[in-house]
Structure formats: C-alpha cells, structure tokens
C-alpha cells in the first residue's frame, strides 16, 4: 500500500492554496526490467480534492505524470480550521485518502 501524502493548505482570507506530495510509483507501462520483460503500468488514474466535503478539484492522471507527483492548486474561499481532503485511485484499484486542516 502507498504511504501517506504530504498535504499543506494555507488560506490568505480569500483563497486557499493547497500543495500535495503523493507517494506513488507512477509506472508508465512502457519500461522494461533488466530481463527485458515489460513492467506493467501502475499509476494514479483519478484524483479528487474536497473542501469541507465539497469537491474543489477533480483530475485525471496518467502515465505521463512523474513518480511521487507534486500537485499545487488554489480554490476560492476556505478558512483556517477547515478541512481539505485529497484522494486518489490508481489503475490497480489501490486507493489513498489523506486530510489536512487549513492553516
């Protein structure tokens, strides 16, 4: 199972900036191992971010995204103490969801 994400969320009063580091292999499915066999694709396919339960970002990820991806985005609103949750699902059905309190 993938390790926890590192999420930071900071509000400036009008907007909240979210920075997310994800721990994931993001294997493209194009590479070969030393014996020449194809390494199967293993990457995040969907990512969702919610603010106090409301979806503020929903994205589709694929093999072009780097290993251990970093994502940064802003949404309108949000205040100190609110909750931001980031979740992803990958092509093998693994899931991960982590939460952070807005500072």
């Amino acid at each position, binding site marked *: 199972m993938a390790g*926890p994400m590192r999420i930071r969320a900071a509000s400036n009063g009008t907007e909240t900036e979210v*920075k997310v*580091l994800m721990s994931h292999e993001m294997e493209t499915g194009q590479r070969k191992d030393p014996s020449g066999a194809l390494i199967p694709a293993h990457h995040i396919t969907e990512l969702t971010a919610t603010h106090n339960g409301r979806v503020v970002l929903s994205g589709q990820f694929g093999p*072009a995204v*780097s*290993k251990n991806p970093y*994502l*940064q985005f802003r949404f309108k609103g949000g205040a100190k103490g609110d909750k931001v949750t980031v979740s992803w699902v990958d092509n093998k059905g693994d899931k991960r969801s982590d939460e952070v309190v807005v500072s």
Partner: protein
Amino acid sequence: MKSRKYAVCLGVSALALMVPTLPALADATSDGIAHYRELLAEGNPAELWEMRGEELWREARGPKKATLEQCDLGQGAGVVKGAFVTLPRYFADTKRVQDLESRLLTCMETLQGIPAAEVAATPFGKGEQENIEALVAWISAESRGMQFNVPTSHPEEKRMYEVGKRAFHFRGGPHDFGCVTCHGDDGKRIRLQDLPNLTQPADAARGFGAWPAYRVSSGELWSMQRRLNDCFRQQRFPYPLYGSDVTIALSTYLGVTANGAGESIAPAIKR
C-alpha cells in the same frame, strides 16, 4: 512527467554543449538550470521520506522491539535537532569516528538488535537500507538551516580529517582520477551538473550540505554513503564497504571544510 522531463534535460544539455564558444549563453544556461531546480524544490518528494523517517524513529522494531528514541547521535540520547551538522564525530562507546549512517547502524544493533553487518550488506533502496534512507532524510531535515560545526577537538577526529584529506587527493585507477580531479577547481561542470570545488568552504557546504537528497532522475532518496559510492564509481574505483572508515574520513574532511561556510539544506532535491 517522465517523457517531458527527459525532453527538458536533452534541451538544456544541448545548450550546455555550446557553452565553451558562447560565454554569454553560459550564464543563461546556468540561470535556466537554477530556475528548473527552484521549480523542483517547491515540491521536494524527500518530504515523503522525512515523514516515514520520523515514524521509524519512534517505532518499536527489531528482535528487541525497541524504538530508536534513546539513540545518541552525539548531542545526547534522543537529541536529533542539530545532530546532523555535527557529524561525523568521535563516539566514546564505539571508540571510533562515525558518520550519521554508521552511527545509525550502531543504534539499530544495540537498541533494536538488528545486526549492523546485515544492514551494511543490504543493497541501497532495499529492506533495512530503505529504512535508513527515511531516517537520514528526517534526521538531516531536523538540522535544516543550521551551519556545519563538525568537531575536530578529539585526536581521532583530527586523524580522520587528515586521512579524508589524503583520500580526497589520492589519485589512482584506470584514469588516474581522484576526488580532486572533479572537485578541486572552481566553475567546473559535467553536462548539467555543476561540480562543487569541495576543497573550498562555501562549495563544500553547498555540496556536502545537500545530501541526503531526492534524485528526480531515479525517484529515490540517496544517502551520503550512496552519493559517495556513486562518486567512487565515477572515479573507476571499487565500491567502498558501507560505513567503512574511508567513507567516514571523506565525510569528516568535507564536513570540517564546510564548517561555518553555509547552511545545511539537506535533504535537497537533485536531478
């Protein structure tokens, strides 16, 4: 973005090839590389290792089911903050100078009962070595922004500094290379990589003070021991044993040279 990242690297190194004939472009290239590094540093995945390392420190593990919280990194049992910038140093219990990694081996063996020799023989990035990588990420991060202050008061510390200095300047192997061949002059570069002049304090602080580091090219966190191993390879020397005296001597030489000359930014992000 694997494919795109690769394209960027190719683009920049194509420019680098033109540098000798176009000095004005050299600055633009270095600026471009610096900007690329800045963008990378924003989301340095080393933080993922830091998180894991902090957990591992407090996790009861090994045959003795103990945590590392009583490990003495030189600042007293359990003190992590500031330890990284004062290593390598002499430890009275082992009667030898140790760097962070060899000291962790001691703590894992004595506190947790995990055999040091087994860990030392494990390939980088696997098993207990993976745990060491997380631990060094967190431990070094706890000294982020602090100046190097590697001690030289104990006779063994002085000796290791002198041995390290000699090892650094020792040339041999099929190309008659020494560390000094690649790291003994200002302003050198191999392809995209600036080569720090590790004989000079500011560069030593910048170069030594960046590792452990996350390597974007492989998506791994490299410890200082692994960094040194790769430089032995580039030097066409055999790999040194993990945690062996020559690696500790080299780190002592680099650390002492870096003293007071810059802040530790480890774990940094590297190409």
